[in-house]
């Protein structure tokens, strides 16, 4: 039995959590040891559920069949010792024994700076626009963006990276072939075809269950040099990722929010506890030691006077078109025409219908 198949077999056991699996494997002298333990001993010493899960696929035929199913779906798998297994994962406390992958796994070999962007699923317009700005700034500087393909901040970060044609890694908490959540199917599809990679510790058809996500988070932080938390409430899954990043010795960056914003409470707490306060992509690049020639900011004096007037009424925080009209002192009809032009020049953007924000 080759190492490759042993790791694959171990990865196929999806009914037990990573911790439990590792504990059992250690008890019997590693994965190879576990493979050889007679059935009756396992049944005696372990609970029914544990023994059942381990014995379920413990035969070569099942493994070969599983491998075929993976091949049909163009799913690869990597394990410690594989040439593509990311170096960063070797030095975290509990590295995954197997990662299923879709897309270009060579991305994992590259030694480019990598930053995880995480945050609330129910993000505010502010969180969305900030995540989008910072992620695209980083991608333009050649940083790989890692995230969890969840709704909200995660999705914004992935989309920004895809839009800027950069590298991005999505780590799923469900099975590798389960594009969850449905709303982000476009990301799942686009990463697969455009030079990114999707990873998951879980094999085929594993449904998203709450307990799997904290394990997923350790891989997100493990893959990165630093973790950026964009928006997090007081008790948020993103804070688990930040905790694990600290345990793994990664940097934690946080975007500050207004002190009255419940949606930013977690971030503000992180900053108080010593996280790096980040207000632009350049802040992170500085931390990572990447020198960037500051991009030439666009000069607003190049705009037509009327466009300049409207642009100056649009803020970083989203504003309703009524307020913009009012401040600019123009009719709705004129304002919407100018806003359209600004949108076309990619200077402003509508995050939600009728609410505009600077890009």
């Amino acid at each position, binding site marked *: 039995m080759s190492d490759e198949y042993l790791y694959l077999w171990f990865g196929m056991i999806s009914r037990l959590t990573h911790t439990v699996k590792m504990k059992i494997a250690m008890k019997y002298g590693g994965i190879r040891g576990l493979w050889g333990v007679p059935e009756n001993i396992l049944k005696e010493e372990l609970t029914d559920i544990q023994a059942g899960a381990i014995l379920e696929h413990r035969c070569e035929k099942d493994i070969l069949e599983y491998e075929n199913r993976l091949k049909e779906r163009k799913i690869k798998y990597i394990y410690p010792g594989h040439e593509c297994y990311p170096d960063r994962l070797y030095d975290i406390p509990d590295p995954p024994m197997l990662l299923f992958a879709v897309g270009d796994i060579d991305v994992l070999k590259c030694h480019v700076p990598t930053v995880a962007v995480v945050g609330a699923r129910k993000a505010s317009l502010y969180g969305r626009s900030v995540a989008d700005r910072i992620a695209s700034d980083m991608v333009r500087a050649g940083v790989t963006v890692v995230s969890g393909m969840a709704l909200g901040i995660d999705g914004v970060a992935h989309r920004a990276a895809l839009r800027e044609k950069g590298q991005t890694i999505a780590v799923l908490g469900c099975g590798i072939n389960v594009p969850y959540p449905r709303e982000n199917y476009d990301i799942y599809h686009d990463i697969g075809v455009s030079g990114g990679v999707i990873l998951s510790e879980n094999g085929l058809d594993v449904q998203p269950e709450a307990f799997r996500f904290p394990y997923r988070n350790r891989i997100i932080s493990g893959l990165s040099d630093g973790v950026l938390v964009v928006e997090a409430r007081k008790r948020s899954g993103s804070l688990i990722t930040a905790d694990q990043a600290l345990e793994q010795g990664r940097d934690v960056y946080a975007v500050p929010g207004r002190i009255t914003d419940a949606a930013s409470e977690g971030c503000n707490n992180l900053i108080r506890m010593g996280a790096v306060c980040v207000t632009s992509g350049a802040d992170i690049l500085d931390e990572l030691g990447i020198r960037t020639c500051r991009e030439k900011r666009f000069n607003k004096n190049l705009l037509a006077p009327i466009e300049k007037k409207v642009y100056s009424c649009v803020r970083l925080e989203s504003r309703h078109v009524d307020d913009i009209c009012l401040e600019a002192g123009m009719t709705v009809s004129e304002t919407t025409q100018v806003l*359209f032009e600004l949108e076309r020049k990619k200077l402003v953007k509508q995050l939600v219908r009728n609410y505009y924000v600077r890009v």
Partner: protein
Amino acid sequence: MYMGYALNMICASCGEAAFSRKEHMIMYSKVLSGLVQGVDGTLISVESDIHDGLPVMNMVGYLSSCVREAGERVRTALRNSNFNLPPKRVTINLSPADIRKEGTAFDLPIAVGILASMGIIPTENINNILILGELGLDGHVNSVNGVLAVVHCAYLNGIRRCVVPLANAGEAAVIEEMEVIPVTELSETVEYFQGIRAIEPEYADVKAMLEENSYGDAGDFAEVLGHETLKRGVEIAAAGMHNILMTGPAGAGKSMIAKRIPTIMPRLTLDESIEITKIYSVAGLLREGQSIVGVRPFRSPHHTISLHAMSGGGRIPQPGEISLAHGGVLFLDELPEFGRNVLEVMRQPLEDGVVNISRLNGIYRFPAEFMLVAARNPCPCGQFPDMNKCTCTVNQIKHYNSRISKPLLDRIDINVDVRKVDYTDLFEGRVGTGSAEMRERVLTAQEVQRRRYENDRIRFNSQLDSGMCSRYIKLGSTEKDFMEYCFEQMNLSARGSYRVLKIARTIADIDGDTDVNEKHLKEAVFFRNADSQGGV
């Protein structure tokens, strides 16, 4: 009793008492009446025949039970008005016999027909006169529904005189060239037909009524502060009869705005008014003494409304809310709370402007050209996109939004998100755009459309089909490039881009421009904006 006989039953042709000489007995007569199918009238002739045989009264002609009962009512009413039916065989036929006869309006024509067959009313006096009315047992003539529809139909068929219950006379008098004779009693009617009593025809000054019917107490747009974008959207919607959806937090002023929409719409023309009055007349919704609907309807059904109340229905189909809103505004507040099937039923009428209801007896067609004004909250708690206040989960918001189907949303041209007004809007004493100013622009645009579509079967830009779009919306090369950009960059669907063109046409009409140019298209894209829905 004999006295009554002697008084009334004078043979019309010889002046002697009827039945005194057999040869003077007129056996057959024909009276014109009508019924309503959907909102349109159909003429029915009521034939009666009296001849020897067992004394019975037979009624034929595909009658419903309420028409069959007319026999009893007529017999009693005749008796109580001092006319005795002869002891002979009376046959009544309502033709054409393949239309099912419903309603109570046949009582009076049947009574008149029998009296004519008996020779009490000269047959030449009832030619080409439409007669409608229900009889009480005492001979009183009661009001009926749908009079206008039948009278209008008779008018189109060349009839110029009608006899209707007094309570319905105002309604019938709307048809200006029709001589409307109001009656209250059977005996009075008979005397009128015998030529011994003159009845003053009812007259209605329709023009004055239309003028005098003001916009009521709906309020003025000047009172709505801080919603200039929405007001512009409403103005465009009203000018081209586009549908509009307002999304915004509770208490932002959505209903307040919807209620004011009729105040910026043009006054009804006589034709429109008749069309609407016909619907209200069939539904029995005309107030007592009201002869015409002079104000554009504003219907705002509650969200618990049933499918049939919305589309129209019932065993004998009655117009539903979408037809009652014909020519006016159908306001659906809390759109996602409406039953899904209730909303879906509006899809076809939104496209075609009519609703067809099939029943055993045929297909009923109700007009339903209305302007749909809908309002909804952005999420169940109503605070989205303000994340500090919104307590809904992502899934709740998605679920809430998914209650309105995509095909329905696709039929809504104008989408505006409303924000909560802030203190400065309310109390800093600024005055917003007022109804008069908006109405002026709407009138200009509608006048332009009226002239443009004179030879077409449509009235408003929203009704343009794709063929007409290319005929009436000529784009220059800049505009074509612009549309191409929108199509590719903004994921505009084919239907979506037609919608944008139609809105742009309306904006150009408001601005008084003959051609649609880029600035109109830009604004149109802003208001269409159906796809950037919610940021979840």
